[in-house]
């Protein structure tokens, strides 16, 4: 990529300005994360007095205790909380359950389908694949309304099954993504395995899946992040406390905070708890995720 700029350029004014611009962009990108952190560790009652203090105001873990249900209601109210019982441990568990099951099922079933589309020969294959891809065009809201009716009729409102089922079997994108990689695998390996008497099940589990570790991992990470961050569907079908996921809980928590002096510290502690697992996931797999972006966009 850098073929054009391989020659070592002089330190020019333009280049310096460009670096400054990039630096400002990075600050703008990171600042909200820092502000979330700074506020979460602040004492809520002291916050209004120090609106631009760069460090936490009267550093305390009070907000986290409040949000995780570790402080009494009186304590919480004294610190500017709503006094309503919240327990983000529970929502954290629910998010983990939903995102994990969705990811495992969706990636596995999509891989099976991708195998059928990439490695098997059967009449009508390309037409069926085109039909699957066409579904990418349908905006989620359009299928969401009837899906809600279906889940309701099945009696699955406020159940994990209701939240998980629509995404558990496949997404057109996941199949498309894996198919691309499966197509690139050398046929000779497969034929050699067949001569050895391997069936399609063994080729799939013993050859294709192990050889596609990287794309499968990438897809799994992206699916996990999407599922973890999803708001609309769990908002519709998972309102009850026992299945409420973090994103939905955040919305509820926000509407519970008193209007006069909102519990900003508590709110930021809660958002931090909701975002932290994804931030950790990202730090661990930054390179893989960043490199996949070019691919996922350019179809």
């Amino acid at each position: 990529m850098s073929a054009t700029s391989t020659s070592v350029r002089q330190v020019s004014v333009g280049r310096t300005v460009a670096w400054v611009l990039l630096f400002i962009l990075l600050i703008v990108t990171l600042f909200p994360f820092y502000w979330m952190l700074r506020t979460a560790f602040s004492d809520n009652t002291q916050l209004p007095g120090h609106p631009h203090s760069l460090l936490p105001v009267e550093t305390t873990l009070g907000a986290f205790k409040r949000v995780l249900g570790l402080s009494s209601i009186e304590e919480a109210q004294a610190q500017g909380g709503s006094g309503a019982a919240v327990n983000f441990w529970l929502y954290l568990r629910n998010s983990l359950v939903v995102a994990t099951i969705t990811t495992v099922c969706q990636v596995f079933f999509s891989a099976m389908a991708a195998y059928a589309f990439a490695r098997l020969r059967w009449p009508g294959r390309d037409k069926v694949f085109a039909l699957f891809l066409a579904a990418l065009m349908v905006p989620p809201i359009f299928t969401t309304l009837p899906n809600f009716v279906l889940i309701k009729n099945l009696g699955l409102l406020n159940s994990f099954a209701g939240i998980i089922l629509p995404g558990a079997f496949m997404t057109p994108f996941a199949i498309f993504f894996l198919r691309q990689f499966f197509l690139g695998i050398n046929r000779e390996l497969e034929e050699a395995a067949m001569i050895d008497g391997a069936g399609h099940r063994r080729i799939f589990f013993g050859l294709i899946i192990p050889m596609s570790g990287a794309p499968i991992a990438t897809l799994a990470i992206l699916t996990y992040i999407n599922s973890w961050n999803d708001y609309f569907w769990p908002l519709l079908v998972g309102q009850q406390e026992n299945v409420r996921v973090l994103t939905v809980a955040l919305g509820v928590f926000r509407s519970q905070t008193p209007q006069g002096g909102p519990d900003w510290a508590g709110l930021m502690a809660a958002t931090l708890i909701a975002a932290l697992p994804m931030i950790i996931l990202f730090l661990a797999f930054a390179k893989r995720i960043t490199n996949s972006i070019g691919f996922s966009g350019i179809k």
Partner: protein
Amino acid sequence: MTATTNAPPTSERSHGGRAAPPGKRRGLGDLKVAMIFLAPATLGFVVFYIWPTLRGAYLSFTEYSLLQPPKFNGLANYDRMIHDSFFWNALGVTVEYVVINIGLQTVLAVGIAMLMYRLTKSITVRAIILAPYLVANVVVALVWYWMLDVQVGVVNTFLSWFGIDPIAFFGDSHWAIPTVAGINVWRHMGYTALLVFAGLQTIPSYVYEAAEVDGSTEWKTFWRITLPLLRPVLVMVLVVTMIGSFQIFDTVAVTTQGGPINATRVIYYYIYERAFTRFDFGYASAMALVLFAILAVVSLVQLRLLRARESDLA
């Protein structure tokens, strides 16, 4: 179209295999295996994509409150839509959002991509740029809701240093949509920038070398070479992001909830309200179908543009 359900009985299989045209070594041979491998995905596809698409289209011609079976009422929902000022308002607000969001985001993304392309290959820089995209909309909305608070928000404190009076970003009907749009620009610009960045890398270096030999300035090179060669990628990026931004919901639901005075009641939010707070499911489905149609048109325009660009890099 529905080839999966057209599977011939197994008795035909060996027969068909023999009769297969030359070149197809195994004829129908893999069909049975393929059906097994496709079974779960097809189940999900039919139950949660195909069936709801058909049912949604049907529901749009009914009156349906979720409590009683849907009652067919012809074009009544569509007639009502034409006369519903809230619908037109929602459409207008959405378009305003899309224009601001896409305009700002595209310019910034191209700028960021160019900066990265010319300055650094650092994976860290790319990762930082992408970070906001990986955090939930809800989280992003709440953080900005706090930072943009009219009284104690850090942004207004910052503005006051320049003598600017506090702005009620979410409470002022003129500011509300640009604010929501700006928040989502912050979340998505890095992602879009990486798409553009990937596009930049496909431009062959000899094009630039030729420009350098001709003594083209950096600015001229950008406008006359980079941008035109980037067009296919830009068209693709524009449409993908546009389809996404027509479906803005989370940010509005968490911050303004359609207010102040309908200023941010975008189409997605209006559909949601109709369906789930007033149980006006038929009407909501009709509006969703119209949104579907709008997005389909956007996609078709994209295909046209893409085709027109095919010969750009001969």
